[in-house]
């Protein structure tokens, strides 16, 4: 067992983990931050995406001990300080970018990482960036639309309500 300490959503967090404990397991099982989801075991689905030192990371593909000393951000820390939805979260609700909600935390975290690096992505760029996030409910249409809207682009010409 190893002691691990990191900052999660701005607060110090620590725990005792096995060498094989994944960051996703540490977040979910020890810190009880169950917003980070695990949808596969081959690092394909992206439901577990969090930010580690500002980079989008699939937390099922990183050991908890590798995050020693890191600054970790999860979906639980994304809302505005007053508890209201942030711009990306609000765009997902406004444009019906989620249905069952299971892939949603990873989608929101990936979208945040994309918009940090590319503040006005094209539709093609959004779709390519989301290659590592699988959604089975929405057909991606409204997710892509929500992310483009969150970037401040006019999405009124994109079909559907």
């Amino acid at each position, binding site marked *: 067992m190893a002691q691990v300490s990191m900052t999660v959503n701005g607060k110090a967090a620590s725990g005792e983990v096995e060498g094989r404990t994944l960051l996703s397991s540490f977040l979910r099982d020890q810190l009880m931050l169950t917003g980070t989801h695990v949808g596969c075991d081959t690092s394909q689905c992206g439901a577990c995406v969090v930010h580690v030192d500002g980079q989008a990371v699939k937390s099922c593909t990183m050991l908890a001990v590798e995050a020693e000393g890191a600054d970790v951000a999860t*979906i639980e820390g994304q809302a505005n300080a007053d508890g209201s939805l942030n711009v990306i979260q609000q765009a997902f609700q406004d444009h019906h970018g989620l249905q069952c909600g299971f892939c949603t935390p990873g989608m929101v975290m990936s979208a945040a990482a994309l918009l940090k690096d590319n503040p006005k992505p094209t539709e093609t760029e959004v779709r390519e960036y989301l290659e590592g996030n699988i959604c089975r409910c929405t057909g991606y*249409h409204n997710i892509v639309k929500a992310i483009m809207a969150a970037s401040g682009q006019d999405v009124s010409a994109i079909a559907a309500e």
Partner: protein
Amino acid sequence: MPKDGGIGASSKRREDVRFLTGAGNYTDDINIRGQAYVHFLRSDIAHGTIKSIDTAAAAGMPGVVRIFTGSDFEGVGGMPCGWQVTDRHGQPMQEPAHPILAQGKVRHVGEPVAAVVADTAEQARDAAEAIVLDIDELPAVVDMKAALESGATKVHDDLNDNLCYDWGFVEENKDAVNKAFDDAAHVTSLELVNNRLVANPMEPRVAVGDYAKGTDDSTLYTTSQNPHVIRLLMGAFVLGIPEHKLRVVAPDVGGGFGTKIFHYQEEAFCTFAAKACNRPVKWTSSRSEAFISDAHGRDHVTKIELALDKDNNFTAIRTETHANMGAYLSTFAPSVPTWLHGTLMAGNYKTPLIYVNVKAVFTNTVPVDAYRGAGRPEATFQLERVVDKAARELGVDPIALRRQNFITEFPYATPVAVEYDTGDYHGTMDKLEEMGDFAGFAARRAESEKNGKLRGLGVNCYIEACGIAPSNLVGQLGARAGLYESATVRVNATGGLVVMTGSHSHGQGHETSFAQVVAEMIGIDESMVEIVHGDTANTPMGMGTYGSRSIAVGGSAMVRATEKIINKAKKIASHLLEASEADIELKDGAFSVAGTDKSVAWGDVTLAAYVPHNYPLEDIEPGLEETAFYDPANFTYPSGAYACEVEVDPDTGKVSIERFAAADDFGNIINPMIVTGQVHGGIAQGIGQALLENCAYDENGQLLSASYMDYAMPRADDLPMFAVDHSSQTPCTHNPLGVKGCGEAGAIGSPPAVVNAVVDALQSAGKDVTHIDMPLSPDRVWTAMNG
């Protein structure tokens, strides 16, 4: 102007806030103090005799609480099948035993053989690896037609053969159908495969069993679309727990698509083991486990023939389908290729004579059951492919051929036992032609050709049967359940309402759309209505969500219960207003006396119901809570027309979807935003089936496509934006909201559009390609072009 609330408004979903902030409550988020974890040791061979299971070393490993094998379940019921199909000779289907843990033999890769309960999930997994399993491998039965040959290895030694049933529908019409083919001016025939799929909701299945020794109460938390069905099946048929001692909770569920309807071994195991170990027992499926333990979908091999007269009128349809059941009968498996498939073979067309033959076959593969659309995609695909092929053979426009044969008068009794109440197939096709800009197709094709690509346009129609289903009818057809739905509406003293529904929401947004309906009926704000679902302890007996039934059946129950509430509230209001009940009107959340300015607010009436100081106690009881059960009079029949434009790269065979348009008729619409989202998701799954997804088994029964590395899920960059319209509305005539259901349409309507488009593209280049089996991978398309 769009409404800002109530029926027809695109109200934003209230459930989104918790999902967007990581505050959802999915089953894997539930942890009970003292819980142990189970890991299932699953067979890695498809067919064999279990010689021994040596658990001695594993039992001594750290943290192990107990190891279970099949022998621990002798005397415990097996997994029940909820539908008995009668074959064309009047005999019941062959129905094998389906144990919780394998007994004597293993029959598919993934079948659970032993279960290790330990203090941690890792300890359970480590110990499972130390179990020594000795299995004598037998030949695996994988191909359906080979499975039916005489002398084939039997999947179940105690059955006569591998044929579950040989179903004919309508058997009495068979001779007339054959004669129509003899008399036909033209016959088009097509052999095709409806590829086997895995539903793949993003949330893998989870089960947590809990047992209270003091009260002898069992609780199961599970990823289910229908907790009451699980309670009934598991309690009554598997574990012998009376329903009043068993609670099943399905909290937030991360997608279902059919595969979370069924009662699975892992649910029964966790409930059983929690009592046996006197500890909560939790199982969380890995994605790898999901591929070999979630029921699969589709997997039909079909020959369809269409007979036409000299004027191109359809005169008869004849089909022969082999449907894979897998190794065991999953909960509703027998109904899918029969009553959910044969009854839809008329499609949108007035074909007078139809005969459907289905041979359901046992193989050494994962059980197959309902997946989004369940039987209806299989019916639609073969019908719309053969109609398209006929048009090309006859040299007529595929849309004109369809229009010529459309059903135009309703109600319409098909020759396959169902009666469509309403529809307007020309209306949806008109809308599609407008949305799809078919007039501009030639120019787009020319542009593609300039870029070295082939462009194709594919069109098709669909009809589906939703709102499942009239209980007396399905009872005659072999269902071992009723298919009503329920709702309890509880009005609180201060005027807020709680609606407890037997429907279950796992992405459909019921918490929002159901509230819109009740708010509209009473004339109050949606925020005053709370929708409760997913817990047998606080909802009335319900049948759950599948078959696009929630708003049509569950919504109708909710309307009926709300009508009872309103009727009673009017009685109270008439007392308070000292007026005749017949003169009381409810509008905008207030009761008034017709023709006067006397009125009393909703909240005053609800308060009077619970503080009955000035109240007609001699006539009515205090309180304001009503329950209704709604059993539908008929199925509902959504319909539509879909168009797909593809580009094919002739050098690689890669297909890209360039445009996709869907014109649907869902009857009345409660929340257009949610309906559109349902269609988007369905189309994506249909395109996934058509281009990407496939369960590939090798001859030994190994599933080769058992991870996201191998099973091609549609990704964001595989799909375009979709044009979706549902302004064509012919309301259902037999339910109170006039609704039809929208959940499965996209998955039913889209695969033939894609394949028709690819065939059109290849034929435009002079290729003699009339069909390619799904998925239309670059390899298959290139081979078809160059083979």
